[in-house]
């Protein structure tokens, strides 16, 4: 790994791969760093090594990653897998952990393409062994062919829940139930956005096909389920929920939940980019222009880390960001940038058609975002409950950061990644600060904790 690159790309999903491929074709020195052992990101995880039979079960969208990964492999960009970025500064210095050693490298342009994560939504029992996120189930399936052995309950809302159910069905996993918590009122709210969504009808058709296949296979879907609870002593054994006014239980040792995905903003926060609260997507995202340029010079974002637009958009946004970096480096002119990006910009516009509908239809109900069940653990690390947060607000701690200092909520190992959204919602719901760009916990480096030994590597390097 060199000490300096013209362009450094963080993340090897569709956005990062597309950016690296286009930028390195123009002769700039470019490196791509990714925590995973192979290219693909979340959607195309293990795309190069997946056995053919498993790939087919995962669906045609997944197979698209093959092309992207092989174009990337053929390009000139240097690739560093199993490499973790733990800090990012506005001077464009990047802290990386590579082969167990830390190092600081720099770049003229940095593209953050770190993708999305599952939206954490606390509910009673969500910390029990046996309760996991749907993305976790999908990661196990894609990368190691690991699937539920004694049946599974899927709960939550959003297209990925349906996709995972369909993928599991294809390999004969018993789906005990799908508990769809999307409130029926969302259907009405989404209706005005349907005409525009019809312009991207292939997405709607795909969803309908999944639903049809699952129904034919006899999978039990409860639409409008609510008051989800996971119960058990040391591990999950029962799920409780309400459906049309009646309480139901299901025995299961595995529950996979999904409430949509949100951008991973640890790095853009650490570097100090301006962020905004996106009401429609119910999350924070870094502010950026059409090219992905953020409020900080030389820091570009693309893909789901910039705002949730899906895998196809991520690929196009990656190319736009790659062209923007080339323009900023003086390698191509503005006219060349604009001309070479016409198709990608059009694609991105077309891809947007479906989003307002999906966002309205799958919006997570406010009652789940700001739970009123005071016993529910909100901070999984420090085990702080909703009741403690509400109490802190009532005692005059009116914003998330004050609540954090008072309760230690968000100070644990995950650095608030799992609770920041819920805390902001509960604070607002209890009469504290309304949700805005300020109500996110303030980020602090390192983004992932380092050992003293790894920090010592840095001192050694500096003294050389």
């Amino acid at each position, binding site marked *: 790994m060199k000490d300096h690159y013209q362009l450094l790309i963080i993340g090897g999903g569709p956005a990062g791969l597309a950016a690296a491929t286009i930028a390195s074709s123009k002769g700039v020195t470019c490196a791509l760093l990714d925590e995973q*052992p192979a290219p693909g990101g979340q959607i195309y995880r293990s795309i190069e090594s997946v056995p053919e039979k498993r790939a087919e079960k995962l669906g045609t969208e997944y197979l698209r990653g093959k092309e992207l990964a092989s174009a990337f492999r053929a390009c000139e960009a240097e690739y560093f897998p199993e490499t973790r970025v733990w800090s990012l500064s506005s001077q464009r210095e990047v802290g990386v952990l590579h082969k167990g050693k830390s190092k600081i490298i720099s770049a003229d342009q940095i593209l953050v393409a770190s993708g999305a994560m599952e939206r954490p939504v606390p509910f009673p029992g969500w910390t029990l*062994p046996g309760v996991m996120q749907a993305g976790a189930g999908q990661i196990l399936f894609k990368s190691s062919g690991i699937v539920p052995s004694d049946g599974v309950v899927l709960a939550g809302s959003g297209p990925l829940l349906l996709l995972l159910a369909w993928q599991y069905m294809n390999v004969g996993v018993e789906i005990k139930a799908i508990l769809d918590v999307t409130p029926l009122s969302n259907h009405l709210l989404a209706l005005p956005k349907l005409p525009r969504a019809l312009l991207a009808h292939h997405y709607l058709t795909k969803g309908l096909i999944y639903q049809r296949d699952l129904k034919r296979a006899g999978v039990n879907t409860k639409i409008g389920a609510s008051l989800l609870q996971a119960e058990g002593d040391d591990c999950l054994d029962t799920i409780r929920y309400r459906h049309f006014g009646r309480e139901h239980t299901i025995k299961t040792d595995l529950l996979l939940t999904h409430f949509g995905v949100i951008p991973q903003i640890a790095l853009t926060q650490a570097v100090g980019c301006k962020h905004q609260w996106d009401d429609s997507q119910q999350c924070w995202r870094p502010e950026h222009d059409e090219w992905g340029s953020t409020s900080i010079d030389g820091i570009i974002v693309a893909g789901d880390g910039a705002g949730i637009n899906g895998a196809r958009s991520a690929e196009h946004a990656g190319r736009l960001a790659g062209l923007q970096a080339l323009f900023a480096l003086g390698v191509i002119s503005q006219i060349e940038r604009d001309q070479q990006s016409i198709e990608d910009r059009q694609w991105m516009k077309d891809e947007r058609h479906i989003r307002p509908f999906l966002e309205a239809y799958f919006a997570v109900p406010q009652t789940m975002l700001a739970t009123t069940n005071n016993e529910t653990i909100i901070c999984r690390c420090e085990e702080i409950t909703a009741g403690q947060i509400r109490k802190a607000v009532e005692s005059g701690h009116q914003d998330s950061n004050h609540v954090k200092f008072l309760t230690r909520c968000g100070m644990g190992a995950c650095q608030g990644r799992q609770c920041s959204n819920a805390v902001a919602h509960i604070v607002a719901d209890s009469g504290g600060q309304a949700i805005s760009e300020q109500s996110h916990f303030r980020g602090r480096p390192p983004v992932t904790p380092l050992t003293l030994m790894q920090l010592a590597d840095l001192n050694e390097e500096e003294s050389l």
Partner: protein
Amino acid sequence: MFKQLSNSTVETVEVTLNGQKIHVSQGMTVAAAALTQGLHFTRTTPISNSKRLPFCMMGVCYDCLMVIDGKANQRACVTYIKKGMQIETQQGVGPSLGETE
């Protein structure tokens, strides 16, 4: 809870999980190995001593912290299995004063 679909083309490696020698597929993460071995928990929490298993499998929840090759607080879901690895369930902050990854 989980099982691995058969795939005879993948080689296995030997590692030690809580003192027991086991064979797991090459390329797996430690968390995936722990789940397929049917571990009931991979750590207990420092605050209430409650049991946890991996939650996100993508490195963002820190619920999969285990002691790997003697080092505490390693995220098992982003650590890949290597031959001869020593993997242990983590109790609370773990040994070595809870030094983090």
